[in-house]
């Protein structure tokens, strides 16, 4: 087994038995990045010297008997998560030179656990997008087919994992941005319950929807990462003060009588036939493992997308008002007055999708339109939330496809914003309801990965991880790696 193909738990095992060192492990990943990142373009910033230094320190600590849940494990972070002393660009020109003076809480927790930081991964600008094509710098490529998108907005993290350019990664999920790229790249991604993971140091997009999520090559790795990053944070007043279990202890290979609901709205027109077929087979595997499968309904599913595309841009228009060239970031030179300075800074600093959403949000919140758009969307959000709460009276978890299609070609949806938004039709509802959901590989269609999404109730991560693990252990999808075909 090549070192870069290891999982986090596999590497920890070898590290603990002194069969490999953190130094050689990190070096192997860095070599792998050099070998394939020109093709995948997953990383925006790499920190090889610091990573080697951290790996050396991890080896010394381990030799001295110090424990750490992730001691010596190399990880990648989506570039909207602040890390001291490194550019955190959010994939935007307006923050191209921004160097945070503080670490996000999740970074501090990973650091305390002994992790090694490889660098920052590419994303759609300010996490707005479903393909990573909205990055101001370049588009990341799907390792399964370099002419296709990795999904978004955490496309860099997903691609890096899929191509074995990291052992684990963090992404952020506002409307599916951890789960959808995980699905398109054939890896595992979890959106925790709202408030489970601190948002301190996550550059805000939509505060009532954003969550940092762990991404891994398998369910065990995701559970490990979640155990480290989750928890109350006095610096995030929206973080829940609930104890964090060891999520890996929830993982069991059987599903004795767990009730699995299949919402009928998640199947049908708009879903690629190959995706639907893979899902039906996956549901059969769950049944064979002992789960009780039943059909259910989330009747307001079709309203989730329009609700999201009013609420998320509205919140974004407020969160992105701070980018004015005064305290940090790009600042337009030679403007005649302060207002023109703001206009030009934001005109040249933001990309098209970000501007589109800021305007949509500003309109929805503006006098005369607030009731018809923003308030209306908030009321429908209540209905969407109630759909889930009702379904969870009858079922432990709900399953369906993560995305309606497999990875699409670069450029295919970039011209039509609405077409792009439809990629998130199955992942948006969980953010609106604040519940947890995970995507893991469940097969292929046309040679490209298909993701199974498992949704659980508020603070139901153990249930969701358990169902995911049982399914994973009964199948072979998680051990398949793409062969990176170089473009020549």
């Amino acid at each position, binding site marked *: 087994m090549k070192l870069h193909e290891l999982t986090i738990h596999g590497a920890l095992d070898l590290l603990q038995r002194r069969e490999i060192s953190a130094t050689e492990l990190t070096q192997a990943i860095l070599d792998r990045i050099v070998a394939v990142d020109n093709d995948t373009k997953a990383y925006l910033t790499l920190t090889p010297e610091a990573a080697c230094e951290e790996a050396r320190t991890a080896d010394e600590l381990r030799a001295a008997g110090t424990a750490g849940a992730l001691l010596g494990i190399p990880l990648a972070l989506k570039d909207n998560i602040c890390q001291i002393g490194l550019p955190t660009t959010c994939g935007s020109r307006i923050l191209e030179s921004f160097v945070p003076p503080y670490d996000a809480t999740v970074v501090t927790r990973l650091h305390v656990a002994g992790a090694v930081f490889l660098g920052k991964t590419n994303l759609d600008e300010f996490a707005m997008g479903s393909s990573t094509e909205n990055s101001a710098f370049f588009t990341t490529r799907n390792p399964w087919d370099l002419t296709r998108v990795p999904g978004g907005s955490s496309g860099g993290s997903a691609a890096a994992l899929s191509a074995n350019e990291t052992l684990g990664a963090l992404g952020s999920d506002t409307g599916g941005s951890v789960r959808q790229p995980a699905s398109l790249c054939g890896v595992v991604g979890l959106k925790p319950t709202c408030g489970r993971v601190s948002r301190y140091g996550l550059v805000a997009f939509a505060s009532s929807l954003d969550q940092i999520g762990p991404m891994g090559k398998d369910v065990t790795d995701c559970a490990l990462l979640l155990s480290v990053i989750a928890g109350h944070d006095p610096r995030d007043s929206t973080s829940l003060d609930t104890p964090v279990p060891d999520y890996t202890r929830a993982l069991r290979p059987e599903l004795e009588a767990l009730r699995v609901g299949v919402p009928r709205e998640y199947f049908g027109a708009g879903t690629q036939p190959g995706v639907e077929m893979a899902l039906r087979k996956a549901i059969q595997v769950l049944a064979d493992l002992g789960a009780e499968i039943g059909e259910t309904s989330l009747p307001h599913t079709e309203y989730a997308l329009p609700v999201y595309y009013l609420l998320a841009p509205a919140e974004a228009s407020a969160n992105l008002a701070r980018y004015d060239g*005064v305290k940090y970031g790009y*600042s337009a030179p030679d403007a005649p007055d302060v207002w023109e300075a703001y206009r030009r800074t934001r005109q040249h600093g933001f990309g098209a999708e970000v501007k589109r959403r800021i305007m949509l949000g500003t309109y929805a919140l503006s006098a005369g339109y607030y009731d018809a758009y923003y308030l209306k969307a908030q009321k429908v959000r209540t209905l969407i939330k109630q759909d889930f709460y009702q379904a969870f009276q009858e079922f432990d978890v709900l399953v369906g496809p993560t995305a309606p299609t497999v990875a699409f070609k670069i450029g295919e949806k970039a011209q039509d914003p609405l077409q792009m938004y439809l990629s998130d039709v199955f992942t948006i509802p969980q953010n609106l309801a604040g519940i947890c959901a995970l995507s893991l590989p469940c097969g292929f269609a046309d040679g490209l990965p298909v993701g199974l999404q498992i949704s659980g109730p508020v603070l139901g991560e153990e249930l969701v991880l358990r169902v995911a693990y049982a399914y994973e252990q009964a199948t072979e999808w998680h051990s398949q790696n793409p062969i990176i075909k170089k473009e020549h």
Partner: protein
Amino acid sequence: MILTREQVEHVAELAKLGLTEEEIETYRRQLSAILEYAAILERLDTDAIPPTATVLPLRNVMREDEPGPSLQQAEALANAPSVREGHFQVKAILQ
């Protein structure tokens, strides 16, 4: 189209976003299409439904008013494009 040119210009001004002529037209088209799609929400009777502003059960999270470590001035100014005597420098607001 739902949006007029004037509305797009007004919204851009509220958001302090400079736009070119071409952009005003493009965004007018795209935003109108998105808002038309969002009109589907009108099908639902939500008169008796309370709005959800936050999905969290938390309200009024407070802490003791005790000072603690925070960003030092130099750190806070480190990314600023224009600094003067420990302040963020901006263009004149008042004439």
